[in-house]
């Protein structure tokens, strides 16, 4: 997770959004309910980004959460576990509160079993609880609040309904700014959910920017074989190119959540146990690794008791144990080195990088969008005199703000409503990159490495600007395509302006006839 949070100054668009909110608060000053909602949206602008983790039951959401936070606090279990939407946010000291549907917020005692929180709802049934909030002093939570949700296809429909209401409410913008969606195989219900999430966006599909797909439990894709993660990578690549998924997620990456969680929270005692097993000859350990039953057999000739071995399996998984033993045998005699390598192999770093690129850098944009949609909702639900100008402002920002238009065009490109294939095979990819698909920094937009010099940057930006201006005049494009080219040119102009260069309008080529 990015640690930087919102340290940079707000853009012009964000300031415009704030002023819209303040105007609305003033207009509705006699309507207390509306004011409360509007103030909540205002506050939200200052809060960290809200990232929800969703997916089918047992897809590994809570495990990934723990891996991201770096501590095993969210409870996980063999059976269905998370039954209530749970927010994890930064706090100075650990605190758990319960927000019921009706009634007062109350605090729950902090009880941990082997490090995991025991979230005991007390006399409240899960259906009566709107959410649980866990405040935790983890640096990873400074940049974003992570929301853990129950599976979307739980056996008890009430449980999945809670997730659906939170993430894809019927008539409101979602309570989450961004979504990490976990899937193990591509199932029809996954696609349906992602489409619902996209459709909750009023006025503009932005899920290409605010949704990341994660192929979870990646180690199980290859049935625990040592080459499982290779298989997982090719599966993820296939899903990434899937026409439906391309429209709904910016990308799909494989993650072995259990491995990541174990790596980040590995204890010295566990390392010692793994080393003790690795020290045995392979003739002893290989048969043990054939199945989980054999690994925990009481009569196995290893100096680690069966209950500890079972605990290792629970923590690392079959793949994790096999991998760890291989590493220890090949010379990794250091717990830190082992844990780092496990984390690296798990794919967690890629997820963190994506979160930084797609979410943290765009945090301001995403929150502003949520806020605008929220105000729009209020205006429609509770019409009030004197709010016409506000409605116009919202419309103007959503339709006109450059950042939003970039997202809209990126969505259209992904959905192949617009295509630049006529200009060459890589043009679509270049266009997506320019719109920020791989990052909002100038270097990423132009596809340059981090060691590019300023001159190179200038030159590349100029070239791109020229190219897109020319393409905007091409007769091979329809109106939407031409307008997209103009937008891309505008992006380049913005980049040049940021570089401090003069943007001289190039002569447009003479029109035919």
């Amino acid at each position, binding site marked *: 997770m990015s640690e930087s949070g919102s340290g940079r100054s707000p853009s012009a668009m964000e300031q415009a959004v704030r002023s819209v909110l303040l105007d609305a608060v003033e207009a509705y000053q006699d309507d207390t309910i509306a004011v409360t909602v509007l103030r909540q949206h205002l506050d939200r602008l200052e809060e960290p980004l809200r990232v929800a983790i969703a997916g089918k039951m047992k897809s590994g959401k809570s495990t990934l959460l723990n891996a991201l936070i770096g501590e095993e606090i969210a409870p996980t279990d063999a059976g269905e576990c998370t039954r209530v939407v749970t927010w994890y946010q930064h706090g100075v000291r650990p605190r758990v509160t319960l927000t019921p549907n009706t009634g007062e917020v109350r605090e729950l005692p902090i009880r941990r079993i082997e490090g995991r929180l025991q979230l005991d709802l007390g006399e409240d049934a899960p259906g009566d609880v709107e959410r649980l909030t866990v405040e935790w002093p983890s640096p990873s939570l400074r940049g974003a609040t992570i929301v853990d949700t129950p599976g979307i296809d739980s056996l008890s429909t009430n449980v999945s309904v809670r997730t659906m209401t939170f993430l894809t409410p019927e008539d409101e913008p979602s309570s989450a700014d961004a979504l990490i969606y976990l899937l193990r195989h591509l199932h029809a219900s996954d696609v349906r959910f992602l489409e619902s999430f996209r459709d909750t966006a009023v006025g503009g599909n932005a899920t290409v920017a605010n949704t990341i797909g994660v192929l979870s439990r990646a180690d199980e894709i290859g049935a625990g074989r040592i080459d499982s993660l290779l298989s997982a990578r090719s599966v993820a690549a*296939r899903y990434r190119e899937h026409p439906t998924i391309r429209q709904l997620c910016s990308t799909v990456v494989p993650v072995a959540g259990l491995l990541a969680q174990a790596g980040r929270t590995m204890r010295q005692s566990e390392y010692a146990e793994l080393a003790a097993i690795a020290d045995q000859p392979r003739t002893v350990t290989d048969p043990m690794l054939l199945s*989980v039953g054999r690994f925990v057999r009481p009569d196995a000739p290893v100096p680690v008791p069966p209950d500890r071995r079972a605990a290792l399996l629970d923590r690392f998984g079959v793949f994790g144990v096999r991998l760890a033993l291989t590493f220890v045998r090949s010379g990794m005699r250091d717990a830190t080195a082992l844990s780092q390598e496990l984390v690296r192999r798990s794919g967690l770093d890629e997820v963190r990088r994506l979160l930084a690129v797609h979410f943290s850098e765009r945090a301001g944009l995403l929150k502003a969008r949520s806020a605008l949609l929220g105000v729009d909702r209020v205006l429609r639900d509770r019409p009030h005199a004197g709010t016409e100008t506000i409605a116009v402002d919202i419309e103007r920002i959503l339709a006109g703000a450059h950042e939003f238009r970039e997202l809209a065009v990126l969505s259209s490109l992904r959905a192949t*409503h617009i295509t630049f294939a006529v200009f060459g095979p890589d043009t679509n990819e270049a266009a997506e990159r320019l719109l920020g698909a791989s990052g909002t920094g100038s270097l990423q937009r132009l596809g340059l490495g981090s060691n590019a010099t300023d001159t190179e940057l200038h030159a590349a930006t100029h070239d791109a600007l020229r190219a897109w201006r020319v393409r905007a005049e091409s007769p091979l494009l329809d109106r939407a395509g031409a307008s997209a080219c103009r937008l891309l040119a505008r992006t380049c102009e913005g980049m040049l302006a940021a570089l401090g260069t003069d943007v001289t309008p190039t002569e447009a080529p003479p029109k035919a006839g």
Partner: protein
Amino acid sequence: MDDLRQLVERAKHAASGNGREDLCPRLDTATQRLDEPGVRVLVVGEFKQGKSLLVNALINAPVCPVDDDVATAVPTTVRFGDESATLVFTRVGASTADAALDGSPLERRVVPIDDLERYVTEQRGSRDHGRRLVGAEVSLRRRILEHGLVIVDTPGVGGIGSAHAAMTIAELPLADAVLLVSDAAQEYSEPEIDFLRQAVKLCPNVACVLTKTDIYPRWQQIAELDKVHLAGAGIIAELMPVSSTLRIQAVAADDREMNRESGFPGLVRYVQEGILGRAEVLAKRSVALDVAYAAEHLSLSLQGELSVLRDPAHNQEVIAGLEAARLRSDALKRQSARWQTTLNDGVVDLQADIEYDMRDRTRGIIREAEEILDAADPSLIATQFDEWFQQRVAESVADNFVWAHERSQWLAAQVAEHFAEAGGAALPDLRVADTTGVLDPVRPMPPIEQDHISFGGKILIGMRGSYGGVLMFGLLTGIAGMALVNPLSIGAGVVLGQRAYKEDKMNRIKRRQFDTKVVVRRQIDEVILHVAKQARDRLRQVQRLLRDHFIDVADDMQRSLTESIAAAQRASQLAVEDRDRRIRELDHAVAQVDAITQQSSQLSMQGNTVLT
């Protein structure tokens, strides 16, 4: 099994010995059924739960393709064969639609087993020179397949863009047993429990297999959770945890310990007893019923003669009674017989009902489709709409099929009832007046069991044969493959046409919506047409089967009665001294036939309690 064969032989012997060779063909068919059981087991489950590997482990051969990513796309059938052979079934057609719905003949082609993977997995497109793959079949020499076991590996349900769930449900009435496969990674999901609920209604023999116990440490906990879910849904089914990987290794290394750990001994035992055993019981029962049927007819002629001989005073009454019965059985064979009317009218009605039901369901789909299209620009939602539409259509076709199947069975029962009411069931009750203790009392004849008129093995097998699982699958694949919303066909004018630029965007959208609605309706008409045609063909077969069956029964009835009358008349002419001799002969024959009847009822009940 041998007892049964011997019994059939004795019955044939008795039949020919008493001048009723006409009963022998039925007994021959019964023996055939014992020799060729054909027990069909479907292996079903969600995407990537380990079905193909399970089948491979059961038959100890890498037949069904297994891959980390791609999955089985068409059903693969495995059966016994003296020599190994691999067949693929294809239909000619450029697209799946043409192939499945044209009614073009099913082509069987032998292919080398190594190529099977290429044909059967979805990644490769299952297409070959304008032919569409609809199924594959592998024959192997394996002990587990010896007693007629046929295992079908099905494509997973729930995978994206698949109407497989609907197809699998439609296959269930035709299966003898179903194994639901789910891995030990997590407990049963709602779709899996829903599927099980439907499955137990449609198939008598359902069991659950929990796979991949070698890599999931908490598999025991998952098994317990699963059992709780099953109990909660009121589903009675055995749950067997296994590991296919361990089994395959155990067999290769001949490691008994590992084999035991794999859990497969339990599964194999279930297949042999719970599936094959039960099927054998059903087969035996049906054969025993056939034998009992033959015995009763034999009994009739013998008894008729006997009663006349013993009680000459009443022989006129006896003969009159028999004549009256023969007239009734004559009436049964006529076209105007009530059961024939019921059958013919019933089939016509059912045909109309099936079509109406299909129209009704699709009316709902059209309504929903139009709602969706009114709210959106069709070109933006083309792919999702297509998928949604195909899923709904496949659901409707499958529901319609299952319902039609139930109605056909109900119709068969109705026809049997009318047949029985018209006197087709009971052979005349010939009671003989009590004589002074010299003779044994004659056993009153029980009416022929409803069961073995209406549901003799012939009917059930015949009805199943008329469907053929491949047909159903093909139909639905065909429907799924029909390209519905072709953006080019709808928006062709837009990209290149001059008109488009002048039209307002709203008008363009409205035009697309209109065009799409037209396409939807046309598509639905096509679907109804094809479904109705299939239903017509099926019903025609069912009608023929039922009609032939009941006419046969009436024929037998008539024949027996004619024989009885002739024998009774002969007996009444018999000279007194010959009477005693003849009575003795008849007593002996009757005792034989009684013994046959008794043994057949014993064997048929025995099967219910003892599983070999």
